[in-house]
């Protein structure tokens, strides 16, 4: 028996329009989001390349000269072979280098903890939505409990218990943040799992883990990405706050928050730059991430789709 083939509407250009490509072109519609992306890319590059492009290694006590302490921006060092463009702190550390290295810590902690929290939170949220019943109730009550405590308080308690280290800061932030992901993913997954393509997957007797991670999860990603973006910014701010309060990263690896804290006491004596420039770096980083996040929310929200 011959079969008449249905030819789909002839594509104008035979380029497979993947969901990803469509997302990219929609994202590019907002100038502000592109600006955020550009600024963030520069910041990320600076952070990654810090060891190679920073004028000085701020962790290497051998290169620091206490005589250069608290020099103002634009001053030359004692040996007159480099300029401290953003001044120095009380240890004579070049602020520009310190900020570059500080960004490294802040971004790594922010991104790392957001990613870990996303994995933990999304898995639990997915499980709660798909299994339902008691599992769902149990997970969601923990989420409620978690979200009813102020984040900073929980983080402070955990750090007081675990002690200071970069890893412990990450753990503290994950514990504080996973609940947001869990709640978001559960909400989306509850809607998605009622859709017919999930029923179809069940009808095809596909294994549960496959339905969860190949069918359900990819369709819960859009809100997850939005939350994750915003939470990276939140995590960076939280880490800065913890470090500022002296409970964050150890003094030997100063993040932006710690740099701000270090210069805080000199603020009123006119030596503003020690706190000011790390503060600006923190602000620009967070704003650039939020600019992207805001637009991502618009692009990825099906309700705002035309």
């Amino acid at each position, binding site marked *: 028996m011959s079969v*008449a083939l249905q030819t789909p509407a002839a594509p104008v250009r035979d380029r497979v329009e993947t969901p990803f490509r469509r997302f990219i072109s929609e994202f590019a519609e907002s100038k502000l989001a592109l600006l955020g992306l550009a600024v963030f890319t520069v910041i990320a590059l600076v952070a990654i390349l810090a060891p190679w492009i920073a004028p000085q290694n701020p962790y290497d006590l051998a290169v620091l000269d206490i005589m250069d302490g608290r020099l103002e921006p634009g001053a030359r060092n004692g040996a007159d072979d480099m300029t401290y463009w953003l001044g120095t702190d009380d240890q004579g550390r070049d602020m520009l280098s310190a900020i570059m290295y500080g960004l490294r810590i802040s971004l790594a902690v922010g991104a790392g903890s957001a990613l870990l929290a996303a994995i933990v939170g999304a898995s639990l949220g997915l499980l709660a939505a798909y299994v339902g019943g008691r599992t769902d109730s149990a997970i969601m009550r923990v989420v409620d409990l978690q979200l009813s405590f102020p984040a900073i308080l929980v983080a402070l308690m955990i750090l007081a218990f675990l002690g200071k280290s970069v890893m412990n800061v990450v753990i503290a932030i994950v514990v504080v943040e996973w609940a947001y992901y869990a709640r978001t993913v559960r909400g989306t997954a509850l809607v998605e799992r009622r859709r017919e393509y999930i029923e179809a997957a069940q009808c095809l007797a596909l294994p549960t883990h496959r339905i969860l991670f190949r069918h359900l999860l990819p369709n819960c990603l859009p809100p997850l990405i939005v939350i994750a973006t915003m939470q990276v910014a939140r995590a960076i701010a939280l880490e800065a706050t913890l470090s500022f309060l002296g409970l964050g990263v150890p003094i030997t690896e100063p993040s932006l928050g710690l740099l701000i804290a270090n210069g805080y006491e000199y603020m009123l004596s006119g030596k503003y730059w020690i706190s000011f420039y790390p503060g600006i770096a923190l602000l620009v980083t967070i704003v650039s991430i939020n600019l992207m996040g805001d637009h991502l929310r618009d692009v990825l929200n099906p309700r705002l789709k035309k």
Partner: protein
Amino acid sequence: MTETPTLEVRNLRTHFFTRAGVVKAVDDVSFTVPRGKVLGLVGESGSGKSVTGFSVMGLVDPPGRIVDGQILFKGQDLAKLSDEEMRKLRGNRIAMIFQDPMMTLNPVLRVDTQMIETVLAHEKVPEAEARARARDALGMVGIPSPEERLKSYPHQFSGGMRQRVAIAIALLHRPDLIVADEPTTALDVTIQGQILAEVQKLAATTGTSLIWITHDLSVVAGLADDIAVMYAGKIVEQGDVGEVLDHPLHPYTHGLIGSVPSRNRRGEPLRQIPGMTPSLLSLKPGCAFRARCPRAQEDCAEMPELHAWMPGRLARCHHPHLEPREEAA
């Protein structure tokens, strides 16, 4: 016909200016709806039937825009009216019924509040009279115990009842014209039957003209006086409903009617129209149906005019079904 028709649409063009290009959703559409008559506007998705209805209502939103043509409502050109003047007509002399009654109803307001507001928006009458009008309208569309139902919220009604309330609101000002966009498509068969019966009664008794937009030929068959079949933004066939359905001229109408299961022998393959509806973005010049048309010839590369092949029988086709009428099934 000497009387001015309720609605006369001439050469209407409504285009959408999208990023991907200009979509000619309605392209040179003309039709007339006499007083008290029902026009069935039939087409598949993307044929432009709904956009035609929205154009008449002045409800086309950007990026869409009426680029050309006249919409003469009792002789007055609606396309030239300001938004303010249009708003005064809408809901008063012209009303619309949507597929989803919740387009008309506000979920957080009681039905009486909404209906009285609608009355008072266009007429200065005492509130008691407005309430009486609302109650009568509910009764007219067959809602039992209208006095009590006035105090309900929309969510307390079933889907069919909600659509009745929406129709009652459309009737509040005894409009001269109602545009109904697939109002029974989402309803169950028995409920659809009830609503069609009510509408039929109303059209016969109130002198209101109706444009009934639908994809369902069977609904139009029972309800309409005239029928206009749309395909890819253009009317391809127009005429008296019985004539068109029994002896379609255009191959598209012919194919559409032929594919209705009850027009085929049970269990045999249905007479199908091959292919699929073309994208309005990539329309080639000439007859839009020719790629799917069994009668297409070379001259179809040129767009045919809507030609009166018989008195009152228009078809946009170079090779219409003019053979002796044998196939009334």
